[in-house]
């Protein structure tokens, strides 16, 4: 009976040998059947990407271009397939975005191009691909990562969409300020106000869940920043659009509530060390609309102050907020028609789009900055839970 003698790690070369006929089994078990919520929770971040790359390294090592080609094609198609099947599941999409990026980084880090080798250890440099230049495949994988990113944004948007109006505009947390409803306005949200209404807290919790899932999957920090910026853009745009369409949201007290909510979102960014990712800046139109609800709107000086303050809002948006503005008590007044005319005259010279509502579907262009890994491929072990017993460590 054969006795297997464990090899020392330094004897491994960081490759995984597999038979051509096992390629389907490999992508099926590793991509299609891997549950991010189950087995994958305990894996080292990016493990599927490292495994696939170590298989690729072996195909390169034996100089089998056909094996390299079909492994890459099977991997790409299988990732697309799982995203088609479970594309509405944030965890699945986040998991494969992180792994696709890691695979892309491996293709660069071990390409042999000096520009990508600067941070490699001597041993990592020995592990570079020896026979094939896969630069063209890197472009294809990068295109795939863009598709997955866009899917992640859609997925996230679907979840947030239901929470934004309720949590950012309707739900009131500041006691005593917004207790008085604008005169003559019915509370539009009375039916859901008390039961199962989303609050700012729900939004913050959801942002926290997205963030911790991405961290757990080993998503590149630079990519997380881009996702968060996009999340904040959606929150800001949806909130502002609803404010622009609802008279009951255009009052001094709503301005106060919105500013408080924005400060909580900023606090969340600070807590996650994400203040410099550009997310806060995407809220600028909403912040200015909230300020507009709170400033004095009577004299020429007020008009001048508003025009210089509201640079992130279009004229159409400023005028709309002023028209919708509704006093909450006897100490306030409606905005006069002549004041609005003054504002329009002052802003006439502006070069801008006449659009009233923000485009909530805009997606900022994504980039995947190179992020090499210090992990030594020869130390990677494959957990038996992945059902990849047919791979041989080389």
């Amino acid at each position, binding site marked *: 009976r054969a006795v297997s003698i464990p090899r020392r790690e330094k004897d491994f070369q960081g490759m995984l040998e597999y038979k051509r006929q096992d390629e*389907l089994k490999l992508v099926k078990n590793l991509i299609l059947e891997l549950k991010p919520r189950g087995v994958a929770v305990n894996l080292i971040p990016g493990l599927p990407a490292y495994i696939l790359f170590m298989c690729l390294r072996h195909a390169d090592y034996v100089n089998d271009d056909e094996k390299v080609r079909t492994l890459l*094609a099977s991997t790409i*198609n*299988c990732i*697309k397939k799982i995203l088609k099947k479970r594309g509405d599941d944030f965890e699945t999409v986040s998991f494969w975005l992180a792994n696709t990026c890691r695979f892309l980084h491996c293709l660069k880090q071990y390409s*042999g191009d000096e520009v990508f080798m600067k941070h490699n250890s001597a041993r990592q440099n020995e592990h570079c*691909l020896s026979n*094939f230049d*896969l630069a063209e495949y890197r472009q*294809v994988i990068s295109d795939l990562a863009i598709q997955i990113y866009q899917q992640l944004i859609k997925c996230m948007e679907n979840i947030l969409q239901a929470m934004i109006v309720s949590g950012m505009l309707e739900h009131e947390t500041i006691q005593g300020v917004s207790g008085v409803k604008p005169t003559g306005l019915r509370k539009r949200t009375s039916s859901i106000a008390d039961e199962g209404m989303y609050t700012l807290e729900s939004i913050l919790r959801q942002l926290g869940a997205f963030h911790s899932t991405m961290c757990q999957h080993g998503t590149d920090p630079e990519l997380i920043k881009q996702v968060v910026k996009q999340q904040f853009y959606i929150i800001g745009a949806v909130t502002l659009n609803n404010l622009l369409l609802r008279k009951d949201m255009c009052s001094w007290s709503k301005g106060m509530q919105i500013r408080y909510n924005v400060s909580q979102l900023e606090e969340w960014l600070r807590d996650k060390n994400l203040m410099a990712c550009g997310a806060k800046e995407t809220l600028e139109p909403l912040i200015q609309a909230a300020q507009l609800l709170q400033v004095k709107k009577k004299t020429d000086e007020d008009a001048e102050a508003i025009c210089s303050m509201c640079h992130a809002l279009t004229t159409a948006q400023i005028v709309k907020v002023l028209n919708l503005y509704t006093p909450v008590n006897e100490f306030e007044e409606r905005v006069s028609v002549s004041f609005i005319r003054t504002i329009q005259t002052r802003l006439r010279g502006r070069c801008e789009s006449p659009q009233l509502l923000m485009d909530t579907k805009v997606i900022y262009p994504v980039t995947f900055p190179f992020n090499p890994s210090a992990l030594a491929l020869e130390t990677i072990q494959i957990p038996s839970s992945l059902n990849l017993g047919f791979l041989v460590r080389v």
Partner: protein
Amino acid sequence: LRAPPRPRVRLKAPTLAEMEEMNVWEEEGSP
């Protein structure tokens, strides 16, 4: 002394769309 590395052979890659059309293993009964 080590021999200088051989130049790597650049593999031509199909685009994502072409790859989908190739249907590498999407025949009946495949995963």
